[in-house]
């Protein structure tokens, strides 16, 4: 009896062992990579089940097993910082604020150069090489851009402009903007110009005064563009808008969402947003019973004739970490996700039948389950992506398509007004690499103190100068220029 049990156990054990070998062998065939992107991305819905469906769909189409790490958007930067430094590095992750962070990650040694992979890949090398030129570290490219280079500018509601007699061309001067927007301050229920809490966006106004508020190469030499008379002039202009009630009083607590909501509901008359938001605004304003047209103001022309839109260039970028065991598979994943329309469609607007489904007229509509977790069906992501989506496998609601020609026109036009953008010069000076992000926060603090009136221009800039001295700023510039 006991022998029988023993034999039985032995057989069972061998069987299990064999099974294990088989499964692990199969595993070896389909490579696994770990991918870290924030939760707003995987199919645009935050519902865990829907995200899982998107991952399955991608695995099927790319032929790579994906181990997803999905932190919330608001903690993404910190989670990546933690993962990179704790030995749990993902193979692939998406770098936020790529102009700053990709150089940082590269200088720290966390990510690998991708030049060879790009050269070998027909899809990745077909892209305009200028895109890769935005961020070069030591002459090498460390990233694949997530989307086409992106810009921001002002959007003005037509109904509000008509109501208050605001007459602005698509490239008004700063004076005109001030004068015309001032007319709206008579109405207490309208916010003439709504702004989000992200001070980076001040750069749009800095452009009009010829200011680039960062350390950047001016005529081949690195300078601090922030502590300049022009920057003070620009901040005083913003302060004037703020003090006279044109600029949103509570902008410092506004999320982007709040700002957008204010605009399409008609609570605000103007805001600052991405070039691909036209259809979004048209669509949402009609849903909110406040339908109108939206006029782009590509740039404000300053007193010396300068100006340009807010050029964010590469906002998000894919990078591969130095511990990645299978960079080929990792690159394949990135390449397919970025340049293959079928896969980009899944990650941008989700899975057919789960995220969206055709209604009785055959037009694709978002499903309630997806809608409840922040999903909306909008062509703007596809629009911003690299591939061409001629065969989508579904039909857009014609209401959305109506706005598309104008959106395409706007996207073309904004390219004529591109503002300056420089990647952070990482890897040249240890001192600089240490303070690059603190310096950015310091600039933002200085600017917001001035605009909100908690310090005078002189006071705020003398604080900034003290800080500059404490980090040995002049020496940093010398090191950068070496």
């Amino acid at each position, binding site marked *: 009896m006991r022998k029988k049990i023993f034999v039985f156990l032995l057989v069972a054990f061998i069987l299990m062992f064999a099974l294990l070998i088989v499964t692990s062998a199969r595993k070896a065939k389909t490579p696994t990579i770990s991918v870290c992107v924030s939760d707003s991305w995987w199919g645009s819905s935050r519902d865990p089940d829907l995200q899982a469906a998107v991952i399955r769909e991608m695995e099927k189409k790319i032929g790579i097993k994906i181990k*997803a790490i999905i*932190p919330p*958007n608001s903690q993404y930067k910190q989670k990546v910082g933690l993962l990179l430094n704790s030995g*749990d590095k993902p193979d692939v992750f998406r770098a936020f604020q790529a102009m700053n962070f990709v150089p940082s990650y590269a200088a720290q040694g966390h990510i690998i150069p991708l030049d060879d992979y790009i050269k070998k890949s027909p899809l990745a090398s077909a892209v305009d090489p200028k895109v890769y030129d935005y961020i070069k570290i030591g002459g090498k490219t460390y990233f694949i851009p997530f989307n086409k280079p992106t810009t921001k500018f002002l959007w003005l509601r037509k109904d509000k402009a008509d109501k208050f007699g605001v007459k602005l061309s698509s490239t008004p001067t700063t004076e005109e903007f001030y004068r015309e927007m001032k007319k709206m301050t008579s109405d207490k229920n309208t916010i003439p110009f709504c702004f989000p809490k992200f001070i980076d966006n001040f750069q749009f106004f800095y452009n009009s005064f010829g200011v680039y508020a960062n350390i950047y190469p001016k005529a081949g030499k690195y300078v601090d563009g922030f502590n300049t008379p022009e920057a003070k002039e620009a901040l005083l202009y913003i302060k004037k808008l703020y003090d006279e009630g044109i600029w949103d009083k509570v902008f410092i607590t506004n999320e982007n969402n709040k700002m957008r909501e204010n605009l399409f509901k008609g609570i605000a008359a103007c805001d600052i947003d991405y070039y691909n*938001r036209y259809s979004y605004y048209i669509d949402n304003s009609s849903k909110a019973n406040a339908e109108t047209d939206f006029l782009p103001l590509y740039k404000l022309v300053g007193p010396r004739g300068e100006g340009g839109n807010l050029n964010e260039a590469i906002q998000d970028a894919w990078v591969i970490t130095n511990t990645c065991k299978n960079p080929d598979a990792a690159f394949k994943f990135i390449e397919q996700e970025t340049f293959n329309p079928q896969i980009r469609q899944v990650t941008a607007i989700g899975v057919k039948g789960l995220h969206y489904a055709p209604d009785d007229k055959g037009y694709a509509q978002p499903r309630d389950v997806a809608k409840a977790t922040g999903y909306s069906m909008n062509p703007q992501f596809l629009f911003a992506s690299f591939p061409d989506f001629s065969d989508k496998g579904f039909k857009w609601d014609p209401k959305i398509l109506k706005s598309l020609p104008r959106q395409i026109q706007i996207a073309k036009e904004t390219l004529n007004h591109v503002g300056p953008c420089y990647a952070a010069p990482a890897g040249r000076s240890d001192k600089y690499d240490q303070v690059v992000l603190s310096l950015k926060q310091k600039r933002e603090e200085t600017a917001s103190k001035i605009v909100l009136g908690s310090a005078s221009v002189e006071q705020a800039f003398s604080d900034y100068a003290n800080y500059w001295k404490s980090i040995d700023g002049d020496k940093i510039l010398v090191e950068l220029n070496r």
Partner: protein
Amino acid sequence: MKKINNKIKNSFGRKVFVVFNGILLFCICLVFIVPLWNVLITSVAKDQDVLGNVYLIVPKSFSLKQYSRILQSGYFKSFVRSIIIATIGTMFSMTITLPAGYTLAQKNLVGRNLFMNLIIITMIFDVGLVPFYVVVRMYGLINTYFALVIPVGLSTFNLILIKNFISSIPDSLIESARIDGANELIILIKIIIPVSIPIIAAITLFYFIQYWNRYIEVVMFIHDNTKTTLQVLLRTLMFESESATTGAESVYDNFKMAIMVMGMLPVLVLYPFIQRYFISGIMLGSIKG
């Protein structure tokens, strides 16, 4: 004569105090209720009533749409998950904290000072998130439910509260039981726990709330979205700040407020059951003497 006068004076002063006290506490309650009231009625208002710059004090409309939206969204699963984690976690925490507090409260314990100092040091020297993560990873807990319970299972704060409470219990009570030959576990269960019900109730509640509201550890220790807790998902819905590539359906104030209400519902339901015990201590007081 004098005495009687005094008594009248006393009771008059007392009356004034009672009235004054009542009014004062009423005012204090008002300070607490008004913002909460605003949250509640905004959460049941219709979209058009929460747009723009409004602060609702008088309800304008009633609709449970936002709540049904939350329930529809598959958040129910994470709700259940959160409750399970908080309940198991609280039990785990209490089974460690209570015996430890009891032992440390014994004045003749071997090495008592050493133990206390070791514990206080941990209160003073903070552990950075990165080293903490590395260690939790070393134990293989990352991305498991255990990571949400074990590494954060003990609160020195609560341990010291319990320890100090137990040391205020007269020794005679414990000693007589020891003489009767009861072992320590029996003493703890039969004597200490019944006397300490109020503080145990309070600490249980604290632990539960800590587990329920935990955020940063969940975000850092859990990779998988299907394992996160309600708080993480709710907070994401509430405070998403977008990047260029996403364009979420816009979130109105009523939805946000409904989320806030949902997020505290279990604690709200739990509280009255536990509160009962805060006051039951009065009767037990007499045993102590």
